[in-house]
């Protein structure tokens, strides 16, 4: 078994050993369920659009709670020294931790499948946008995880890691709503950087290569920044 896979398994299991995972999942499902179903019958629309529209804002706070420990805890207990002196590379560590967080987010999304099923009972649900929405949700989770991973590599304090990551994720999410304040010259750049438009496309069921490119470049930039931080620490 490759080292990346071993580390991935350890990280993934570690989520379920501590109670944090269950608390985070419970809070996520409660908030998501309440927002979704309280508006669902008022709208009278057979789709999951409201759920997916709210997802970036919810993830801005949920995902940093998942990723805050990734490096901060290792620094704090000193286990980072053990990890780095095992025959593994920094790249493998980063990939293992990122995929573990993304996999955890995917697991967290599974119970929301109930929403889709119960909505399908009330009318004719179009499954295309739902599947697209879930692909987008996992990508979004991956992007925020990468940002959280990078921030976690900066500090040994988990609270700082959480707040900073949440601020960045929330900022990227809210950028869409702040765009009309800005001069036209920089508008297009910021619009490209804002996560909302890219996610909205995918959530509609349109998987465009430009949006995929955006997601993967944010992941890459975050991972590379984390790589630089960890190399600098040596």
């Amino acid at each position, binding site marked *: *078994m490759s*080292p990346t896979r*071993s*580390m991935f398994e*350890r990280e993934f299991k*570690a989520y379920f*050993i*501590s109670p944090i995972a269950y608390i985070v999942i419970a809070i996520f499902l409660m908030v998501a369920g309440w927002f979704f179903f309280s508006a669902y019958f008022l709208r009278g629309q057979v789709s999951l659009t409201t759920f997916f529209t709210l997802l970036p804002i919810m993830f801005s706070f949920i995902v940093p709670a998942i990723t805050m420990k990734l490096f901060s805890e290792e620094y704090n*207990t*000193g*286990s*980072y*020294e*053990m990890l*780095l*002196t*095992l*025959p*593994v*590379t920094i790249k493998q560590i980063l990939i293992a931790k990122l995929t573990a967080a993304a996999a955890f987010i995917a697991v967290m999304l599974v119970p929301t499948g109930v929403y889709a099923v119960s909505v399908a009972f009330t009318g004719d649900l179009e499954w295309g946008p739902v599947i697209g929405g879930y692909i987008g949700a996992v990508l979004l989770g991956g992007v925020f995880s990468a940002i959280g991973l990078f921030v976690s590599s900066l500090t040994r304090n988990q609270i700082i890691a959480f707040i900073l990551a949440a601020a960045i994720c929330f900022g990227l999410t809210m950028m869409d709503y702040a765009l009309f304040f800005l001069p036209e010259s920089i508008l297009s750049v910021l619009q490209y950087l804002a996560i909302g438009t890219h996610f909205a496309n995918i959530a509609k069921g349109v998987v465009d290569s430009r949006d995929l490119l955006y997601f993967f470049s944010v992941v890459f930039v975050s991972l590379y920044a984390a790589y630089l931080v960890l190399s600098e620490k*040596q």
Partner: protein
Amino acid sequence: MIRVENLTRYYDDFCAVNRINLDISRGEILGLLGPNGAGKTTTLRMLTGFLRPTSGSIRVKDFSVDKDILEIKRLMGYLPESAPLYPDMLVYDYLNYVAGLRGVARSDRLSRIRGMVDMCGLDNVMHQPVAELSKGYKQRVGLAHALINDPEVLVLDEPTSGLDPNQIVEIRDIIKQIGKEKTIIFSTHILSEAEATCDRIAIIDKGRIVADESTGALKQQGGQENYIHLTLAGADLASVKALLNDVAGITEIREAPAGENGDRPDELRLQLRCPATSDPRRDIYSRIRQKDWDLLAFYSETPSLENIFRKLTREN
């Protein structure tokens, strides 16, 4: 086996390790001795690839730390100070995980883990989370972590710090047992420990190596002088000095520094320095016998490592 040349490491402006040279051959047990903050941990961290040297080179067998760090990590088992393990994992899961990462084949893993359990005495704690272990058991799991893939080199950073006397002896025995086949580098600030376990001792102070010799040679250097301790009741310093003044082989008579039990006013505690080649004890005793003093203690001591260590780490 391991060759360290001009190894230097700065933390910002602070020079933690200053142009260190070390040559360690296969099967040797090297003790890295020094006061706190001397640069021991930094040196070991560079050897194991946790820190990168600012300058200088490290070669392990034919691998250089710049290019083949992964190979070097495979050859080395490392136990950092205070054994920082993942607190939420069970001991068995942890060892299994490490065995996997360090390339122990799946089919051999169980027997390797069993071997480690026997060697480090982990039978009772295999299914406990690491966070619940006592310091001694944590250290033993750390040792198992370092040894699980049967590495050629073992690097231990203060393996006995914070342990009780029984545990210290146990860990030392394990080190000695392993040291029969493997190259071991370990750091400590406990002199008797280095003396009891190491073939060779390197004393490091303020980032420099101030002595690097076999344990025997280093002890001999320190043992060029003997101390004779003498405790008398009913005597005063001046009259003792007058009495023993012309005894051959005594180079200095002085009052001993205050002892642990506190000085009692009626007792005179003396320290006589004399070269290792002479033994004036018979002469001293016959002279004291003529006086009306009570002889309470009378013994000679060879201050070995401790002397050398203090001399080297204070004067520099």
